[in-house]
């Protein structure tokens, strides 16, 4: 899976490493800003209110 990604990236080795780092940062950002807030709503430890 990741070997495929490595082969699909252009340029020399050092360039691919930088590219991968940028991709990793982008993936983490997407998780923090979008994915995790959505998942958190379904987590069983985020309820503070009383109600039915």
């Amino acid at each position, binding site marked *: *899976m*990741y070997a495929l990604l490595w082969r699909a990236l252009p340029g020399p080795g050092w360039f691919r490493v930088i590219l991968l780092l940028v991709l990793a940062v982008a993936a*983490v950002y997407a*998780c*923090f800003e979008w994915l*995790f*807030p959505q*998942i*958190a*709503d379904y*987590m*069983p*430890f*985020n*309820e*503070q*209110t*009383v*109600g*039915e």
Partner: protein
Amino acid sequence: MTRARRARPRPSLPLRIVSVIGELLITTGVLVGLFVVWQLWWTDIQAEREQEATFAALGWEPPTYEAAPAESVHHDDEPPVMETPAEGETFGRLYVPRFGQDYVVPVTEGVGKADVLDKGEAGHYPETVLPGGVGNFSLAAHRTTYGKPFHLIADMQAGDAIVVQTEDTWYVYEATESLVVLPHQVEVIAPVPGTLPGAEIPEPTERFITLTSCHPMFSARERYIVHGTLKYWMPVSSGTPEELLPAAEGGR
């Protein structure tokens, strides 16, 4: 010998399947780890930023800490009660000296997660009265993560001050009791706390405050509840209640 052109045998199909599964498992592990980091660390940072923005938008002067106001500005008569704020509107600041001398969180109408609680604010149950009203002014806030406004709620003791400031008025409440209930026990925010749903509602005569948060920490199994009653009120223009003055620290 050149590195690039070394001929490598193509891995067999089962081997490739196993390696993809392995990579997926590792990826899942990393994502779960990242989620924990986000939940325990990043939500606090975000909520603190949101709090600052909320206070800035509110634009109120911070309280002055000069001298205790004279007893004469303590009012025991009927306090002014503000008009019902719009859903999502921040209408007050909450001070709890037990949570720290510089502790202050915004008080916002509504108990929605994304628009109130997750921003590190204390949410006002819209079905309950406003500060100073006869009935039960009830607030909810996070105990862990998202700025954790009620992190130390279990430290509250009878007699501790819970101070609410609206634009014109200070409301000084005094904690009376703490209890742990199940999430469906809405009677804790009833106008007279403890009135079971469906039961005949007694005419409220006292001015209660109730704080609700999760219990135990990092769980939603139960709720931690603090009740209190109004001790006195005073106009914001008369100064700062002595409960909030740094000198009051020794007394606690």
